[in-house]
C-alpha cells in the first residue's frame, strides 16, 4: 500500500516534470538566446554571455524604438477605435429590441469563424487603391477588425450582465437616459469593458499577418521586427524582441481571472 502510493507520487511528479519541461523549455531556450553573445554549433550552451545585443537593439535610432513606438501607438489607437464602435453597439445589442439581432451577432462572429488570411490579403489590395497601405492609419484599421469582433461580443455580454432594475430605479428617480447610462450602467459594465480593451490591446500587439500585408515595409511593429531578425538568422535580436512581446501576454494570462468574471463569461454569445 505504502509503496504503491509512493509509486503514484513518483509517476505524477515525473509527468508534471515532463510537462514543465515542455512548457518552460522553449521559453528558457529563448531566454538563453537573448543573453548569448557567442553560441555556435555544437556547443550545448552559449560560450559567451552578456548584454551586447541588448545594447545593439536599444541603441538610439536602432529601429527597435520606432517599432516599439509604432506597436504601442497602433495598439492604443485600435483599442480606442474598437471600443468607441463597440460600446454603443454592445449596449444596443444587450438592451434594445433590435430587428435581426441574431443576424447582427452572427455578422460580428464571422471574422473569427473563418480563416482570416484571405481577408487580410484583400484588405491590403483595397487599401492600396485607397492609399492606406504603408500608413499608420491603415495598420490601425486592419488591427481593429479582430479587435472589433472581441470588443462587440464582450461589451454585449458586459452590458447584459448589468442589473436592469438599477437603471430603472435611476430613471424613476428622474435621471435622464444619458445620465443613467453614465452614472449607473457604465460603471457596472466597466470591468467587462476593461477586459475587452485588454483583449484588443494584446491582439493588436501580437498581430502579424495584417501588418505584414498592409504595413510592411514602411511600418514596422515589434512582431515584424522579430520575424525579420529571425529570418535573417539573428537569433539574439529575435529572442530579445520576443521577450519584450512576452511581457504583456504572460502578464495578462496571470490576471485574466480578475477581469473576466464568471457572470460576464457565461453571457458571451447570448
Amino acid at each position, binding site marked *: 500500500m505504502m509503496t504503491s502510493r509512493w509509486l503514484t507520487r513518483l509517476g*505524477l511528479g515525473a509527468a*508534471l516534470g515532463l*510537462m*514543465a*519541461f*515542455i512548457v518552460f*523549455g*522553449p*521559453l*528558457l*531556450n*529563448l531566454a*538563453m538566446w537573448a543573453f548569448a553573445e557567442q553560441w555556435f*554549433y*555544437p*556547443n550545448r550552451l552559449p560560450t559567451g554571455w552578456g548584454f551586447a545585443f541588448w545594447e545593439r537593439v536599444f541603441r538610439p535610432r536602432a529601429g527597435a524604438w520606432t517599432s516599439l513606438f509604432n506597436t504601442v501607438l497602433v495598439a492604443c489607437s485600435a483599442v480606442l477605435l474598437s471600443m468607441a*464602435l463597440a460600446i*454603443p*453597439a454592445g449596449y*444596443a445589442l444587450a438592451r*434594445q429590441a*433590435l*430587428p435581426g439581432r441574431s443576424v*447582427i451577432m452572427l455578422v460580428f462572429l*464571422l471574422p473569427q*469563424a*473563418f*480563416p*482570416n*488570411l*484571405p*481577408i487580410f*490579403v*484583400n*484588405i491590403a*489590395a*483595397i487599401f492600396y487603391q485607397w492609399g492606406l497601405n504603408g500608413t499608420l492609419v491603415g495598420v490601425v484599421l*486592419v488591427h481593429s477588425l479582430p479587435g*472589433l*469582433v472581441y470588443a462587440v461580443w464582450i461589451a454585449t455580454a458586459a452590458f447584459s450582465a448589468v*442589473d436592469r432594475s438599477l437603471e*430603472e430605479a435611476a430613471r424613476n428617480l428622474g435621471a435622464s437616459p444619458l445620465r443613467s447610462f453614465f452614472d449607473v450602467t457604465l460603471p457596472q459594465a466597466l470591468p467587462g469593458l476593461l477586459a475587452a480593451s485588454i483583449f484588443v490591446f*494584446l491582439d493588436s*500587439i*501580437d498581430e*502579424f*499577418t495584417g501588418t*505584414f*500585408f498592409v504595413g510592411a515595409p514602411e511600418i514596422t511593429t515589434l*512582431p515584424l521586427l*522579430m*520575424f525579420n531578425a*529571425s529570418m535573417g538568422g539573428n537569433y539574439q535580436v529575435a*529572442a530579445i524582441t520576443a521577450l519584450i512581446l*512576452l511581457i504583456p*501576454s*504572460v502578464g*495578462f*494570462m496571470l490576471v485574466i481571472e480578475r477581469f473576466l468574471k464568471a457572470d460576464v463569461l457565461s453571457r458571451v454569445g*447570448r
Partner: protein
Amino acid sequence: MTTSFSHAPSLPIPGRRLPRISLGLLLVLPALTAITLLYALPLIRSLVTAFRDGSGAWTTEHVVRAFSLYGRDMLFSLGVVSASLALIAAMSIAIAGYLTLGATPWAVRALRWLYRWPLFIPFVVTGQLARSFLATNGMMNNVLVETGLMASSSAQSFLDWRGLVLTFAWKQIPFVTLLLAGAMAAVEQSHIEAARNAGAGRLRCLFQIVLPQAAPTLWVGLILSLVAMLSVLSVPMMLISGNPTMMTSMMAHRITYYGDYGIANALGLFSYALTAVTAWFYLRLTLRREATR
C-alpha cells in the same frame, strides 16, 4: 436572463416604440459599417477574384491551377492540421480530465498553474520558440543527448511537419483545455458521484460521463483551433523552408512574388471550404444531439 426580461417592459408607451428601435440601430450602425468595410468587402473581393480572369470574365482557371500547382501543399496542410487537432484533442482531454477528476490535490493545483502559460503567447513568438527549441542543436535534442536517451549523432532538426504539429499543439492545447475544463466543471457532480458509487473507475467516468457532456465545447475549441491554424502565416514561414508547406505560406508567396491574387484567393477558397465542412459536421452533431434530447 428570463427574469430580467419579465419586468423589462415597464415603459410601454406605444408611440415611443419605433424611435427606440431606430435609436438601437443608430447605435449599432457605426460598428456594422466598420465590419462591412473591413470584412464583408474584402471577403466578397476574395470570392470574386478567385473566379475572374484578367479581363474580368468569369473563369474556373484559378481554381484548377491552384489545385495542380499546390495540390501537394493542400494535402500537407490537411495532414498537419489533422495531426495537430488529434494531438490537441488527446492532450486537452487528458489535462482537463485530470483537473476535473484528479484525486491528488497538489498535483491538480500544480497542473492548473502549469498548463496555461502558452495561452496568450503570440504565434510569431511561438514560431521563434520552436525555431530555437526544436533545431538540431536546440534544447530538446541537447537534453535528450545529455540524459542519455539519444545518441548525439542521431540528433536531427524537427523543423518540418513534426515541428509544425508540435508548435500548433503547444500553442492551442491550453486554449482548448481552458474551455474543456470549464465545461467539465459544469457537469453535475451528482452524476460523477453516482457513477463512482456504482464502481466506475476514474477513466471510465471520464469517457462515459464527463466527456460526452462536455463534447460540444471540445468541438468548438477544436474548430477555433482549426481556424487559427489555417490563418496563421508566421509559424509556417518560420519553420518550413521549401515545399511542401502550409497553404497560408503559399498564398503569401503567390502575392509577394507574383502579385497573383487570382490563385491566392483560389487557395483561400480551399481554407474556407475546409472550415465550412468542419463547421457543418459540428452543426449536424449538435442538431442531432438536440433532437435526441
